[in-house]
Protein backbone atom coordinates (compact mmCIF):
# COMPACT_ATOMS: atom_id res chain seq x y z
CA UNK A 1 0.00 0.00 0.00
CA UNK A 2 1.27 3.44 -0.90
CA UNK A 3 2.09 5.80 1.91
CA UNK A 4 1.04 9.39 1.36
CA UNK A 5 4.24 11.28 2.11
CA UNK A 6 5.76 14.71 1.56
CA UNK A 7 7.96 14.60 -1.54
CA UNK A 8 11.17 15.45 0.32
CA UNK A 9 10.59 12.55 2.69
CA UNK A 10 9.86 10.12 -0.15
CA UNK A 11 13.02 11.11 -2.02
CA UNK A 12 15.07 10.93 1.17
CA UNK A 13 13.82 7.47 2.06
CA UNK A 14 13.72 5.84 -1.35
CA UNK A 15 16.36 7.35 -3.62
CA UNK A 16 19.91 6.69 -2.52
CA UNK A 17 23.27 7.60 -4.01
CA UNK A 18 24.19 5.13 -6.73
CA UNK A 19 20.62 3.98 -7.32
CA UNK A 20 19.06 3.17 -10.68
CA UNK A 21 16.25 5.66 -11.13
CA UNK A 22 13.73 6.30 -13.91
CA UNK A 23 11.76 9.55 -14.07
CA UNK A 24 9.24 8.96 -16.84
CA UNK A 25 6.59 11.02 -18.60
CA UNK A 26 6.35 11.44 -22.36
CA UNK A 27 6.05 15.23 -22.82
CA UNK A 28 2.96 14.97 -20.61
CA UNK A 29 3.21 14.60 -16.80
CA UNK A 30 6.99 14.89 -16.49
CA UNK A 31 7.91 14.68 -12.79
CA UNK A 32 9.80 17.98 -12.55
CA UNK A 33 9.13 18.53 -8.86
CA UNK A 34 10.68 15.17 -8.03
CA UNK A 35 13.71 15.93 -10.20
CA UNK A 36 14.24 19.18 -8.29
CA UNK A 37 13.99 17.41 -4.97
CA UNK A 38 16.61 14.88 -6.05
CA UNK A 39 18.89 17.81 -6.94
CA UNK A 40 18.15 19.60 -3.66
CA UNK A 41 19.08 16.54 -1.68
CA UNK A 42 22.41 16.32 -3.51
CA UNK A 43 22.11 12.76 -4.82
CA UNK A 44 25.17 11.49 -6.68
CA UNK A 45 26.15 8.64 -9.00
CA UNK A 46 22.64 7.82 -10.11
CA UNK A 47 22.04 5.68 -13.16
CA UNK A 48 19.19 7.53 -14.80
CA UNK A 49 16.74 5.98 -17.23
CA UNK A 50 14.43 7.99 -19.41
CA UNK A 51 13.22 7.66 -23.00
CA UNK A 52 13.26 11.42 -23.56
CA UNK A 53 15.66 13.22 -21.26
CA UNK A 54 14.59 16.84 -21.47
CA UNK A 55 14.73 19.82 -19.13
CA UNK A 56 14.47 17.90 -15.88
CA UNK A 57 17.35 15.61 -16.87
CA UNK A 58 19.33 18.55 -18.26
CA UNK A 59 19.05 20.04 -14.79
CA UNK A 60 19.92 16.83 -12.97
CA UNK A 61 22.87 16.11 -15.27
CA UNK A 62 24.13 19.70 -15.05
CA UNK A 63 24.01 19.49 -11.27
CA UNK A 64 26.13 16.34 -11.24
CA UNK A 65 23.46 13.91 -10.10
CA UNK A 66 24.03 11.30 -12.81
CA UNK A 67 26.88 8.93 -13.50
CA UNK A 68 25.16 7.06 -16.27
CA UNK A 69 22.24 7.76 -18.58
CA UNK A 70 20.12 5.22 -20.46
CA UNK A 71 17.99 7.03 -23.03
CA UNK A 72 16.63 7.16 -26.56
CA UNK A 73 16.15 10.86 -27.40
CA UNK A 74 17.71 13.79 -25.57
CA UNK A 75 16.57 17.22 -26.58
CA UNK A 76 14.47 20.23 -25.75
CA UNK A 77 11.27 19.30 -27.62
CA UNK A 78 10.37 21.89 -30.21
CA UNK A 79 13.34 24.09 -29.22
CA UNK A 80 16.65 22.34 -29.83
CA UNK A 81 19.62 21.03 -27.87
CA UNK A 82 19.94 20.31 -24.20
CA UNK A 83 23.06 22.28 -23.39
CA UNK A 84 23.89 20.62 -20.07
CA UNK A 85 23.34 17.15 -21.50
CA UNK A 86 25.62 18.04 -24.40
CA UNK A 87 28.24 19.60 -22.15
CA UNK A 88 28.32 16.43 -20.06
CA UNK A 89 28.71 14.15 -23.07
CA UNK A 90 30.96 16.41 -25.14
CA UNK A 91 33.13 17.80 -22.32
CA UNK A 92 32.49 15.71 -19.23
CA UNK A 93 31.15 18.70 -17.27
CA UNK A 94 30.41 18.75 -14.37
CA UNK A 95 31.44 15.09 -14.35
CA UNK A 96 31.77 12.36 -16.92
CA UNK A 97 28.53 10.78 -17.99
CA UNK A 98 28.37 7.26 -19.39
CA UNK A 99 25.60 6.80 -21.88
CA UNK A 100 23.69 3.76 -23.01
CA UNK A 101 21.76 4.75 -26.06
CA UNK A 102 18.74 2.87 -27.36
CA UNK A 103 15.76 3.59 -29.60
CA UNK A 104 12.22 4.37 -28.44
CA UNK A 105 10.97 0.99 -29.64
CA UNK A 106 13.69 -0.77 -27.68
CA UNK A 107 13.53 1.26 -24.48
CA UNK A 108 9.74 1.21 -24.28
CA UNK A 109 9.91 -2.54 -24.86
CA UNK A 110 12.56 -2.82 -22.17
CA UNK A 111 10.17 -1.28 -19.65
CA UNK A 112 7.45 -3.69 -20.79
CA UNK A 113 9.86 -6.60 -20.29
CA UNK A 114 10.84 -5.26 -16.88
CA UNK A 115 7.19 -4.93 -15.90
CA UNK A 116 6.65 -8.48 -17.15
CA UNK A 117 9.41 -9.94 -14.99
CA UNK A 118 11.51 -10.84 -18.02
CA UNK A 119 15.26 -10.24 -18.28
CA UNK A 120 15.14 -9.35 -21.96
CA UNK A 121 13.16 -7.59 -24.63
CA UNK A 122 12.51 -9.19 -27.99
CA UNK A 123 11.87 -6.97 -31.01
CA UNK A 124 12.75 -6.11 -34.57
CA UNK A 125 15.14 -3.22 -34.21
CA UNK A 126 18.34 -1.49 -35.23
CA UNK A 127 18.53 -3.20 -38.61
CA UNK A 128 21.28 -1.27 -40.39
CA UNK A 129 21.71 1.26 -37.58
CA UNK A 130 25.13 2.08 -36.13
CA UNK A 131 23.55 2.09 -32.68
CA UNK A 132 24.00 -1.67 -32.59
CA UNK A 133 27.76 -1.18 -33.04
CA UNK A 134 28.12 1.09 -30.05
CA UNK A 135 25.79 -0.63 -27.63
CA UNK A 136 27.14 -4.07 -26.77
CA UNK A 137 23.85 -4.91 -25.09
CA UNK A 138 22.10 -5.17 -28.43
CA UNK A 139 22.23 -8.82 -29.46
CA UNK A 140 20.71 -11.02 -32.11
CA UNK A 141 18.83 -14.20 -31.36
CA UNK A 142 17.34 -16.68 -33.78
CA UNK A 143 13.67 -17.60 -33.71
CA UNK A 144 13.48 -21.37 -33.24
CA UNK A 145 10.32 -21.53 -35.36
CA UNK A 146 11.10 -19.38 -38.38
CA UNK A 147 14.88 -18.97 -38.27
CA UNK A 148 14.45 -15.19 -38.34
CA UNK A 149 17.00 -13.07 -36.53
CA UNK A 150 15.45 -10.86 -33.91
CA UNK A 151 16.96 -8.29 -31.61
CA UNK A 152 17.31 -8.97 -27.90
CA UNK A 153 18.13 -6.26 -25.40
CA UNK A 154 18.18 -6.23 -21.60
CA UNK A 155 15.01 -5.23 -19.84
CA UNK A 156 14.95 -2.18 -17.58
CA UNK A 157 14.27 -2.76 -13.89
CA UNK A 158 15.01 0.42 -11.93
CA UNK A 159 15.38 0.57 -8.18
CA UNK A 160 12.92 3.44 -8.17
CA UNK A 161 10.59 4.87 -10.79
CA UNK A 162 9.18 8.35 -10.33
CA UNK A 163 6.15 9.58 -12.25
CA UNK A 164 3.58 12.36 -11.98
CA UNK A 165 -0.17 11.68 -12.30
CA UNK A 166 -3.38 13.61 -12.16
CA UNK A 167 -5.16 12.06 -9.18
CA UNK A 168 -4.85 9.70 -6.26
CA UNK A 169 -7.50 8.66 -3.78
CA UNK A 170 -6.85 8.52 -0.02
CA UNK A 171 -5.73 4.92 -0.25
CA UNK A 172 -3.08 5.86 -2.81
CA UNK A 173 -4.72 4.42 -5.92
CA UNK A 174 -3.63 6.55 -8.89
CA UNK A 175 -5.49 7.59 -12.05
CA UNK A 176 -3.77 8.82 -15.22
CA UNK A 177 -5.39 9.85 -18.47
CA UNK A 178 -4.36 11.38 -21.76
CA UNK A 179 -0.89 10.61 -23.08
CA UNK A 180 0.28 7.70 -20.94
CA UNK A 181 3.81 7.25 -22.28
CA UNK A 182 5.52 4.36 -20.52
CA UNK A 183 4.66 5.41 -16.99
CA UNK A 184 2.64 2.38 -16.01
CA UNK A 185 5.31 0.04 -17.36
CA UNK A 186 8.08 2.02 -15.66
CA UNK A 187 6.27 1.79 -12.32
CA UNK A 188 5.65 -1.93 -12.70
CA UNK A 189 9.25 -2.54 -13.77
CA UNK A 190 10.67 -0.91 -10.63
CA UNK A 191 11.24 -2.19 -7.12
CA UNK A 192 9.81 1.03 -5.67
CA UNK A 193 7.66 3.77 -7.14
CA UNK A 194 7.07 7.38 -6.16
CA UNK A 195 4.04 9.04 -7.72
CA UNK A 196 3.53 12.78 -7.37
CA UNK A 197 -0.06 13.82 -8.05
CA UNK A 198 -1.98 17.00 -8.75
CA UNK A 199 -4.49 16.26 -6.04
CA UNK A 200 -5.99 13.67 -3.74
CA UNK A 201 -9.68 13.14 -4.42
CA UNK A 202 -12.29 11.45 -2.30
CA UNK A 203 -13.10 9.01 -5.05
CA UNK A 204 -11.44 8.25 -8.35
CA UNK A 205 -14.00 7.95 -11.05
CA UNK A 206 -12.19 5.91 -13.68
CA UNK A 207 -13.72 4.78 -16.96
CA UNK A 208 -14.03 0.95 -17.15
CA UNK A 209 -10.61 0.35 -18.69
CA UNK A 210 -8.81 3.46 -17.49
CA UNK A 211 -5.13 3.52 -16.56
CA UNK A 212 -5.30 2.99 -12.81
CA UNK A 213 -2.22 2.16 -10.78
CA UNK A 214 -3.39 0.38 -7.64
CA UNK A 215 -2.01 1.63 -4.36
CA UNK A 216 -0.26 -1.67 -3.63
CA UNK A 217 2.20 -1.29 -6.52
CA UNK A 218 3.20 2.20 -5.36
CA UNK A 219 5.55 2.96 -2.49
CA UNK A 220 4.82 6.65 -1.94
CA UNK A 221 2.25 9.12 -3.21
CA UNK A 222 3.17 12.79 -2.82
CA UNK A 223 0.74 15.62 -3.40
CA UNK A 224 2.51 18.25 -5.50
CA UNK A 225 0.07 20.49 -7.38
CA UNK A 226 1.71 21.70 -10.56
CA UNK A 227 4.48 19.16 -10.04
CA UNK A 228 4.77 18.41 -13.76
CA UNK A 229 5.30 22.03 -14.76
CA UNK A 230 6.75 23.24 -17.17
CA UNK A 231 5.31 20.12 -18.81
CA UNK A 232 1.56 19.76 -18.58
CA UNK A 233 -1.12 17.78 -16.79
CA UNK A 234 -4.18 17.13 -18.95
CA UNK A 235 -7.24 18.56 -17.28
CA UNK A 236 -5.12 20.72 -14.97
CA UNK A 237 -2.73 23.03 -16.82
CA UNK A 238 -1.06 23.57 -20.17
CA UNK A 239 2.53 23.12 -21.17
CA UNK A 240 4.63 26.19 -20.35
CA UNK A 241 6.12 26.48 -23.82
CA UNK A 242 7.68 29.83 -22.97
CA UNK A 243 9.79 28.20 -20.28
CA UNK A 244 11.01 25.50 -22.66
CA UNK A 245 12.20 28.30 -24.94
CA UNK A 246 13.67 30.32 -22.07
CA UNK A 247 15.59 27.25 -20.92
CA UNK A 248 17.66 27.41 -24.07
CA UNK A 249 19.18 30.69 -22.81
CA UNK A 250 19.27 29.84 -19.15
CA UNK A 251 21.19 26.64 -19.77
CA UNK A 252 23.57 27.79 -22.49
CA UNK A 253 26.41 28.84 -20.20
CA UNK A 254 27.56 26.92 -17.16
CA UNK A 255 27.49 30.08 -15.04
CA UNK A 256 23.96 31.15 -15.96
CA UNK A 257 22.78 27.61 -15.40
CA UNK A 258 24.40 27.37 -11.99
CA UNK A 259 23.07 30.75 -10.96
CA UNK A 260 19.57 29.80 -12.00
CA UNK A 261 19.68 26.43 -10.26
CA UNK A 262 21.03 28.00 -7.08
CA UNK A 263 18.32 30.61 -6.94
CA UNK A 264 15.43 28.45 -8.12
CA UNK A 265 16.17 25.01 -6.77
CA UNK A 266 18.96 24.87 -4.21
CA UNK A 267 17.74 27.94 -2.33
CA UNK A 268 14.08 26.94 -2.42
CA UNK A 269 12.53 24.50 0.00
CA UNK A 270 9.87 22.97 -2.15
CA UNK A 271 8.33 22.98 -5.59
CA UNK A 272 5.75 25.48 -4.37
CA UNK A 273 8.55 27.81 -3.30
CA UNK A 274 10.29 27.21 -6.66
CA UNK A 275 7.17 28.16 -8.53
CA UNK A 276 6.93 31.46 -6.64
CA UNK A 277 10.53 32.35 -7.42
CA UNK A 278 10.07 31.25 -11.03
CA UNK A 279 7.05 33.51 -11.40
CA UNK A 280 9.09 36.42 -10.02
CA UNK A 281 12.07 35.83 -12.29
CA UNK A 282 9.80 35.32 -15.32
CA UNK A 283 8.64 38.90 -14.68
CA UNK A 284 12.28 40.03 -14.71
CA UNK A 285 12.95 38.28 -18.01
CA UNK A 286 9.95 39.67 -19.81
CA UNK A 287 10.29 43.21 -18.38
Amino acid sequence: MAEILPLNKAVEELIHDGAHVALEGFTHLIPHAAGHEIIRQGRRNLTLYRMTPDLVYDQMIGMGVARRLVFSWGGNPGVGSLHRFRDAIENGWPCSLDIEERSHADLSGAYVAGASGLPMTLLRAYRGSDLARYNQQIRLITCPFTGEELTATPSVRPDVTVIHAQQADRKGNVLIWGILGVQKEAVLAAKNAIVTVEEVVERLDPAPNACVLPSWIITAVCVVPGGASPSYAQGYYERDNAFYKAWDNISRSREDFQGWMKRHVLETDSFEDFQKIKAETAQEVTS
Partner: protein
Amino acid sequence: MTTQPYSADEIMTVSAARLLKNGAVCFVGIGLPSKAANLARLTHAPDVVLIYESGPIGAKPSVLPLSIGDGELSATADTTVSTAEIFTYWLQGGRVDIGFLGAAQIDRFANINTTVIGPYDKPKVRLPGAGGAPEIGASAKEVLIILRQSQKAFVDKIDFTTTIGHGEGYDHRVRLGLSTKGPTSVITDLGILTPDKDSRELTLTSIHPGVTLDQVRAATGWDLKIADRLEVTGAPNANELHVLRDLEARTAAAHKGD
Protein backbone atom coordinates in the same frame (compact mmCIF):
# COMPACT_ATOMS: atom_id res chain seq x y z
CA MET B 1 -4.88 32.17 -62.88
CA THR B 2 -1.94 33.78 -61.23
CA THR B 3 -0.20 31.96 -58.45
CA GLN B 4 0.22 33.66 -55.13
CA PRO B 5 3.73 34.29 -53.87
CA TYR B 6 4.91 31.63 -51.45
CA SER B 7 8.04 30.86 -49.47
CA ALA B 8 10.51 28.03 -49.97
CA ASP B 9 9.29 26.48 -46.73
CA GLU B 10 5.72 26.66 -47.98
CA ILE B 11 6.36 24.81 -51.21
CA MET B 12 8.36 22.22 -49.26
CA THR B 13 5.46 21.63 -46.91
CA VAL B 14 2.87 21.60 -49.68
CA SER B 15 4.94 19.22 -51.84
CA ALA B 16 5.36 16.84 -48.93
CA ALA B 17 1.68 17.00 -48.05
CA ARG B 18 0.71 16.08 -51.59
CA LEU B 19 2.61 12.81 -51.30
CA LEU B 20 0.28 11.57 -48.58
CA LYS B 21 -2.66 9.66 -50.01
CA ASN B 22 -6.05 9.95 -48.43
CA GLY B 23 -6.55 7.11 -45.96
CA ALA B 24 -2.84 6.44 -45.53
CA VAL B 25 -1.72 5.54 -42.02
CA CYS B 26 1.11 7.88 -41.24
CA PHE B 27 3.58 7.72 -38.33
CA VAL B 28 4.42 11.38 -37.88
CA GLY B 29 7.59 12.99 -36.57
CA ILE B 30 7.34 16.34 -34.83
CA GLY B 31 8.08 19.61 -36.68
CA LEU B 32 8.09 19.62 -40.49
CA PRO B 33 6.59 16.13 -40.93
CA SER B 34 3.76 16.97 -38.55
CA LYS B 35 3.05 20.22 -40.36
CA ALA B 36 2.96 18.58 -43.79
CA ALA B 37 0.85 15.67 -42.57
CA ASN B 38 -1.72 17.95 -41.02
CA LEU B 39 -1.82 20.08 -44.15
CA ALA B 40 -2.60 16.93 -46.11
CA ARG B 41 -5.35 16.07 -43.64
CA LEU B 42 -6.86 19.55 -43.97
CA THR B 43 -6.75 19.54 -47.78
CA HIS B 44 -6.92 16.49 -50.05
CA ALA B 45 -6.56 13.73 -47.45
CA PRO B 46 -9.24 14.16 -44.76
CA ASP B 47 -9.03 10.48 -43.82
CA VAL B 48 -5.26 10.27 -43.41
CA VAL B 49 -4.58 8.60 -40.06
CA LEU B 50 -1.93 10.34 -37.98
CA ILE B 51 -0.08 8.33 -35.34
CA TYR B 52 2.32 10.08 -32.97
CA GLU B 53 4.85 8.05 -31.01
CA SER B 54 3.62 9.43 -27.70
CA GLY B 55 0.42 7.41 -28.12
CA PRO B 56 -2.34 9.22 -30.05
CA ILE B 57 -3.86 7.28 -32.95
CA GLY B 58 -5.93 9.24 -35.45
CA ALA B 59 -4.97 12.67 -34.07
CA LYS B 60 -6.72 15.61 -35.70
CA PRO B 61 -5.05 18.63 -34.09
CA SER B 62 -6.56 22.03 -34.91
CA VAL B 63 -3.23 23.69 -34.12
CA LEU B 64 0.21 22.23 -34.71
CA PRO B 65 1.75 20.51 -31.70
CA LEU B 66 5.00 21.97 -30.41
CA SER B 67 6.00 18.72 -28.79
CA ILE B 68 5.40 15.12 -29.80
CA GLY B 69 3.06 14.72 -26.85
CA ASP B 70 0.92 17.86 -26.80
CA GLY B 71 -2.46 17.48 -25.13
CA GLU B 72 -4.13 18.58 -28.37
CA LEU B 73 -3.00 15.31 -30.00
CA SER B 74 -4.57 13.12 -27.36
CA ALA B 75 -7.70 15.25 -27.08
CA THR B 76 -8.43 14.97 -30.82
CA ALA B 77 -7.34 11.34 -31.34
CA ASP B 78 -9.58 8.31 -31.89
CA THR B 79 -7.79 6.87 -28.89
CA THR B 80 -4.49 7.17 -27.07
CA VAL B 81 -2.49 4.06 -26.25
CA SER B 82 0.79 3.60 -24.39
CA THR B 83 4.01 4.53 -26.12
CA ALA B 84 5.14 0.92 -25.92
CA GLU B 85 1.99 -0.21 -27.74
CA ILE B 86 2.57 2.34 -30.51
CA PHE B 87 5.87 0.66 -31.28
CA THR B 88 4.69 -2.95 -30.90
CA TYR B 89 1.13 -3.35 -32.20
CA TRP B 90 1.09 -0.41 -34.57
CA LEU B 91 4.58 0.14 -36.01
CA GLN B 92 6.26 -3.27 -35.66
CA GLY B 93 2.91 -4.93 -36.31
CA GLY B 94 3.07 -3.56 -39.86
CA ARG B 95 0.09 -1.21 -39.60
CA VAL B 96 1.93 1.94 -40.75
CA ASP B 97 1.91 2.89 -44.44
CA ILE B 98 4.11 5.97 -44.26
CA GLY B 99 6.84 6.84 -41.80
CA PHE B 100 7.32 10.57 -42.02
CA LEU B 101 10.71 11.69 -40.72
CA GLY B 102 12.91 14.74 -40.43
CA ALA B 103 16.70 14.55 -40.27
CA ALA B 104 19.77 16.43 -39.08
CA GLN B 105 22.05 14.91 -41.73
CA ILE B 106 21.31 12.75 -44.73
CA ASP B 107 23.54 11.09 -47.31
CA ARG B 108 23.04 10.14 -50.95
CA PHE B 109 21.32 6.89 -50.01
CA ALA B 110 18.93 8.65 -47.66
CA ASN B 111 20.59 7.26 -44.58
CA ILE B 112 19.92 9.55 -41.65
CA ASN B 113 22.11 10.79 -38.80
CA THR B 114 20.44 12.26 -35.74
CA THR B 115 23.05 11.02 -33.26
CA VAL B 116 26.45 12.76 -33.43
CA ILE B 117 28.64 15.01 -35.51
CA GLY B 118 32.17 13.70 -35.11
CA PRO B 119 33.21 10.44 -33.44
CA TYR B 120 30.57 8.73 -31.32
CA ASP B 121 32.81 8.52 -28.27
CA LYS B 122 34.12 12.06 -28.56
CA PRO B 123 31.42 13.97 -30.38
CA LYS B 124 31.90 17.44 -31.78
CA VAL B 125 28.16 17.96 -31.58
CA ARG B 126 25.91 15.65 -29.66
CA LEU B 127 22.51 15.45 -31.39
CA PRO B 128 19.32 14.22 -29.67
CA GLY B 129 19.63 10.61 -30.83
CA ALA B 130 17.46 7.98 -32.39
CA GLY B 131 14.01 8.37 -30.86
CA GLY B 132 11.67 6.20 -32.88
CA ALA B 133 13.43 6.65 -36.22
CA PRO B 134 15.43 3.41 -36.68
CA GLU B 135 12.31 1.28 -36.36
CA ILE B 136 10.11 3.70 -38.29
CA GLY B 137 12.64 3.51 -41.12
CA ALA B 138 12.57 -0.30 -40.98
CA SER B 139 8.92 -1.11 -40.26
CA ALA B 140 6.86 1.55 -42.03
CA LYS B 141 5.94 0.30 -45.49
CA GLU B 142 7.45 3.44 -46.97
CA VAL B 143 9.34 6.48 -45.64
CA LEU B 144 9.14 10.14 -46.53
CA ILE B 145 11.85 12.52 -45.35
CA ILE B 146 11.45 16.27 -45.16
CA LEU B 147 14.28 18.68 -44.39
CA ARG B 148 15.80 21.91 -45.67
CA GLN B 149 18.58 21.38 -48.18
CA SER B 150 22.07 22.62 -47.29
CA GLN B 151 25.72 21.51 -47.39
CA LYS B 152 25.49 21.00 -43.65
CA ALA B 153 22.54 18.65 -43.88
CA PHE B 154 23.16 16.90 -47.23
CA VAL B 155 26.60 15.43 -46.63
CA ASP B 156 28.84 13.14 -48.59
CA LYS B 157 29.32 10.88 -45.63
CA ILE B 158 27.29 10.92 -42.45
CA ASP B 159 29.23 10.45 -39.24
CA PHE B 160 26.72 7.98 -37.86
CA THR B 161 23.90 5.98 -39.41
CA THR B 162 21.09 6.36 -36.93
CA THR B 163 18.38 5.24 -39.34
CA ILE B 164 19.09 3.32 -42.47
CA GLY B 165 17.69 4.55 -45.74
CA HIS B 166 19.09 2.54 -48.65
CA GLY B 167 22.37 1.71 -46.89
CA GLU B 168 25.08 1.36 -49.50
CA GLY B 169 22.49 1.32 -52.23
CA TYR B 170 21.17 -1.35 -54.59
CA ASP B 171 19.69 -4.29 -52.68
CA HIS B 172 21.28 -3.41 -49.37
CA ARG B 173 17.95 -3.22 -47.54
CA VAL B 174 17.02 -6.67 -48.79
CA ARG B 175 20.39 -8.02 -47.70
CA LEU B 176 19.70 -6.60 -44.25
CA GLY B 177 16.46 -8.55 -44.13
CA LEU B 178 14.20 -5.55 -44.59
CA SER B 179 11.12 -6.10 -46.71
CA THR B 180 9.82 -2.53 -46.58
CA LYS B 181 10.51 0.09 -49.25
CA GLY B 182 12.52 2.57 -47.19
CA PRO B 183 12.70 6.24 -48.24
CA THR B 184 10.75 6.90 -51.42
CA SER B 185 11.04 10.71 -51.44
CA VAL B 186 13.12 13.37 -49.78
CA ILE B 187 11.30 16.67 -49.90
CA THR B 188 13.31 19.86 -49.43
CA ASP B 189 12.89 23.59 -49.83
CA LEU B 190 14.54 23.29 -53.25
CA GLY B 191 13.02 20.21 -54.79
CA ILE B 192 12.18 16.55 -54.46
CA LEU B 193 14.75 13.76 -54.50
CA THR B 194 13.83 10.16 -55.17
CA PRO B 195 16.00 7.03 -55.15
CA ASP B 196 17.22 5.73 -58.49
CA LYS B 197 15.36 2.55 -59.27
CA ASP B 198 18.53 0.46 -59.41
CA SER B 199 21.24 2.11 -57.37
CA ARG B 200 18.80 3.72 -54.91
CA GLU B 201 20.96 6.86 -54.98
CA LEU B 202 18.95 10.02 -54.39
CA THR B 203 18.25 11.82 -57.64
CA LEU B 204 16.71 15.22 -58.08
CA THR B 205 13.48 14.44 -59.89
CA SER B 206 11.57 17.64 -59.27
CA ILE B 207 12.80 21.18 -58.79
CA HIS B 208 10.69 23.87 -57.24
CA PRO B 209 9.70 26.74 -59.58
CA GLY B 210 12.34 29.47 -59.72
CA VAL B 211 15.07 27.34 -58.14
CA THR B 212 18.19 26.76 -60.27
CA LEU B 213 20.15 23.55 -60.58
CA ASP B 214 23.20 25.42 -59.36
CA GLN B 215 21.36 26.36 -56.20
CA VAL B 216 20.45 22.75 -55.58
CA ARG B 217 23.98 21.52 -56.30
CA ALA B 218 25.43 24.19 -54.03
CA ALA B 219 23.20 22.96 -51.24
CA THR B 220 24.29 19.33 -51.62
CA GLY B 221 27.47 17.87 -50.19
CA TRP B 222 27.94 15.35 -52.98
CA ASP B 223 27.77 15.35 -56.75
CA LEU B 224 24.01 15.23 -57.00
CA LYS B 225 22.43 13.17 -59.74
CA ILE B 226 19.76 14.97 -61.73
CA ALA B 227 16.94 13.09 -63.42
CA ASP B 228 16.93 13.00 -67.20
CA ARG B 229 13.38 14.18 -67.12
CA LEU B 230 13.51 16.75 -64.37
CA GLU B 231 10.09 18.00 -63.46
CA VAL B 232 9.16 21.36 -62.07
CA THR B 233 7.15 21.06 -58.88
CA GLY B 234 3.63 22.35 -59.20
CA ALA B 235 3.33 25.60 -57.29
CA PRO B 236 1.16 25.58 -54.19
CA ASN B 237 -2.39 26.44 -55.12
CA ALA B 238 -4.46 29.07 -53.41
CA ASN B 239 -6.30 26.60 -51.23
CA GLU B 240 -3.15 24.86 -50.06
CA LEU B 241 -1.56 28.17 -49.14
CA HIS B 242 -4.72 29.39 -47.48
CA VAL B 243 -5.09 26.27 -45.36
CA LEU B 244 -1.38 26.17 -44.48
CA ARG B 245 -1.31 29.84 -43.47
CA ASP B 246 -4.50 29.47 -41.50
CA LEU B 247 -3.02 26.50 -39.65
CA GLU B 248 0.14 28.43 -38.89
CA ALA B 249 -1.84 31.48 -37.79
CA ARG B 250 -4.02 29.38 -35.49
CA THR B 251 -0.92 27.74 -34.09
CA ALA B 252 0.78 31.08 -33.48
CA ALA B 253 -2.34 32.46 -31.81
CA ALA B 254 -2.67 29.40 -29.58
CA HIS B 255 0.93 29.72 -28.47
CA LYS B 256 0.93 33.51 -28.25
CA GLY B 257 2.97 34.69 -25.33
CA ASP B 258 4.94 31.43 -25.16
